[in-house]
């Protein structure tokens, strides 16, 4: 629905409106899903994908046919796991075994789960989870192994957190805990996706040898979400900002939200943003390892959105009051720019990192570190896409041999020029000559032409001379 307010906004920001139109009208999916040949139960899976995911369903549905179903199911399985973990109405003794056993559950024909609370928005997925199980068992065994492994590790990680009373009361304690939490809920997804891409031959296998890169992909997205959702999570009585960071700025977590602590809260948020920002160059590095366009889009769009979100959250006190979002126009522009090539994605990162750099405040305790983190991203981008061309070496050569070589090269190029000129001259001469010869053979009278030309030329010079005499005569008369 178009509200009058947004109408006004797009009148003042026509370039954003242009991006929306551009994306809606001109975007062609790299691969299109073949809906007609899908069985009913698979259609149901895609229905759940649309229902449960706002941002991911579009990119998943455009994936390469080889990975379309596996990634969709992977997403639904993790969403199912997440729905059980999130639901505070399920008692721990019931929740924990399900989480720990979820990798086996996904192989149990006809498994469904009806005990989610009525307010759980994704409960229907679990009520009809049998469709997911049905199709999971049909995908290639190699994909099943990967998805099962990740599900197992994530389920156990989540169960550990549910069991951790300290976490439930005080939230995340240290930065290490925070990154471990992000590892379970996002880093593992990064690993799973990467293994699927490589298995399908759509990404460089070298990505598996640099596990910190795929970890950063997940960490970056998750940390940005945690930063942006601070207020929403507080309202849901959850805390993901680690105590190790916020306790440097305020004594109680709730103090972050008090208006009088505005500056302290901002300082704290920029430390969180700094932690996320140090992952940005890894993400770009990772994207360079993707071979296939749809896989690239699938990974690049969320990353671009994340860096843009990081920028709107930076030095923005609104994050403590409401859910801050990037505008729809900006989002469409990001999608246009993230579905082409790495260079454009790098430009997106550069743009938002520079914007963060501009807003960096010298009063901020992490001023220097943020500045360095921004510089690092910029240098990384420069290393893969240099903006400057290396100047030519003009200096006198180091050794006598090299000097001799340069001299010879120069001489050679001069002779090349002379030969070229000679060749052109000779060619022209031959053509003119042969044309004259043909004309003569055909009976042209060059002798007459020559005398005629001579007399005409003579007449021309003669008339000019006469003209000059006339002028001097005229001036002579005027003296009278």
């Amino acid at each position, binding site marked *: 629905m178009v509200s009058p307010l947004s109408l006004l906004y797009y009148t003042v920001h026509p370039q954003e409106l242009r991006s929306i139109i551009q994306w809606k009208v001109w975007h062609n999916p790299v691969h299109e899903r073949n809906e007609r040949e899908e069985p009913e139960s698979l259609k149901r899976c895609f229905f759940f994908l649309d229902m449960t995911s706002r941002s991911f369903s579009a990119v998943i549905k455009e994936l390469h046919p080889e990975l379309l179903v596996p990634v969709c199911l992977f997403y639904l399985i993790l969403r199912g796991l997440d729905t059980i973990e999130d639901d505070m109405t399920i008692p721990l003794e019931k929740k924990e075994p399900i989480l720990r056993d979820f990798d086996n559950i996904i192989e149990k024909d006809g498994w469904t789960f009806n005990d989610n609370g009525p307010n759980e928005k994704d409960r229907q997925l679990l009520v009809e989870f049998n469709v997911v199980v049905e199709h999971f068992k049909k995908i290639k065994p190699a994909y099943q192994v990967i998805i099962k492994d990740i599900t197992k590790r994530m389920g156990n990680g989540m169960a550990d957190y549910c069991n951790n009373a300290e976490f439930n009361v005080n939230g995340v304690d240290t930065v290490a805990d925070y990154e471990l939490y992000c590892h379970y809920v996002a880093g593992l997804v990064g690993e799973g996706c990467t293994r699927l891409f490589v298995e399908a031959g759509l990404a460089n296998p070298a990505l598996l040898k640099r596990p910190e890169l795929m970890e950063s992909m997940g960490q970056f997205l998750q940390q940005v979400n945690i930063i942006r959702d601070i207020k929403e999570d507080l309202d849901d009585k959850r805390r993901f900002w680690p105590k190790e960071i916020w306790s440097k700025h305020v004594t109680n977590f709730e103090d972050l939200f008090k208006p009088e602590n505005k500056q302290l809260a901002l300082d704290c948020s920029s430390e969180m943003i700094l932690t996320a920002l140090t992952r940005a160059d890894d993400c770009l590095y990772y994207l360079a390892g993707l071979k296939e366009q749809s896989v690239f889009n699938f990974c690049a769009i969320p990353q671009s959105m994340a860096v843009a979100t990081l920028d709107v959250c930076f030095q923005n006190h609104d994050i403590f009051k409401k859910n801050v979002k990037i505008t729809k126009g900006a989002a469409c522009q990001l999608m246009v720019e993230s579905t082409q090539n790495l260079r454009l994605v790098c430009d997106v990162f550069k743009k938002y990192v520079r914007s963060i750099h501009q807003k960096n405040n010298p009063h901020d305790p992490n001023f*220097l570190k943020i500045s360095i983190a921004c*510089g690092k991203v910029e240098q990384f981008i420069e290393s893969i896409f240099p903006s400057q061309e290396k*100047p030519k070496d003009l200096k006198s050569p180091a*050794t006598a041999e090299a000097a001799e070589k340069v001299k010879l090269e120069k001489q050679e190029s001069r002779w090349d020029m002379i030969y070229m000129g000679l060749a052109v001259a000779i060619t022209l001469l031959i053509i003119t000559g042969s044309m004259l010869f043909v004309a003569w053979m055909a009976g042209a009278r060059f002798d007459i032409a020559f005398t005629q030309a001579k007399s005409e030329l003579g007449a021309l010079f003669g008339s000019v001379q006469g003209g000059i005499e006339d002028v001097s005569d005229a001036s002579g008369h005027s003296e009278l």
Partner: protein
Amino acid sequence: MESLKVLVTGGTGFLGSEIVKALVQAKNYEVTAVDINPPALGTSTFADVRYVRANILHPEELAKVFKEAKPAIVIHAVGVYPLGLARYSPKGKEAVFAVNVEGTKNVIEAAKDCGATGLVYTSSITVLVDEIDADFANADETWPTGRAKLVYGQSKTIAENLVLAANTTDFLTCSLRPATIFGPGDPACIPTIHSCIAKMESPIILGTGTNLCDFAYVSNVADAHVLAVRNLLNSGTAAGEAIFITNGEPIAVRDFCLALWKEFGHIPPFQLRIPEGLAWWLGVIVEGVGWAVGKQGTLSRGVVRDGTAVRYVSIAKARRLLGYKPRVGMTEALEISCAHYKRQIGGR
């Protein structure tokens, strides 16, 4: 293990004394520090380092000292640089060239004659960036030198070429090109930027204020020298090579200044941005007035370029060849250096 003999020229200077310290800490080196000055008051000296006085402009003095010390490797860390506005002026060229070029020639000769197997030369990033008018975004060692327009960069380029040309199979040489060095006891970088506070120049931003530059903390640069010595004694892969040494943390010059001032409790109360084009013309005017009055102002075209240029390089080669890693990060490095400078000016 038998300790290896290393001779450091300029061994009591700002960088030289740090190199001596790093060699001592690396344990297996027997160090001779040669300098025109004895160790300055307040700097650390080491009991097992031999301190010898010699002038690199006197070849016979050098020959004697080098033959006594019989070093396996010589580190040549002597250099003079014109400070302040003199940096942009051709005046004093002879003095700079004498020490930086002739002195280096003498050191190469003395090192070869005394039977040393290698020489590590302290060059400078200015061999590239003293071109002044150009930007250098993530430059590397394949970028050509020889375009420097300022005296200092020119002298370092010539000396570096001499050093690298002297590289043979039995006399290995390499040239390290540190970015602007700062640290405790730093005679140039920190005092210069600090002086802006008193002169009330801190609110002024030249250009965009976002241009990135490289800096190098002194102990990291000293580490690189020790690594280079080790390389020439072992694999020798660095022989004949020029290598950039920085902190690997390119930073906006403006931010470096702000962070430095902040260590002294100063944050500019407001900011005044002067576009680069305008600043350049102001530089011309100040230079002109300075010339007419016979007194130099703070601003000049050179200062404007130094403040607005993009000048950072890649240290991939140093990491690859030397295994170099900047041990002290920028944040910590600035804290240490400024705390030291605070004590220094407070003690006066």
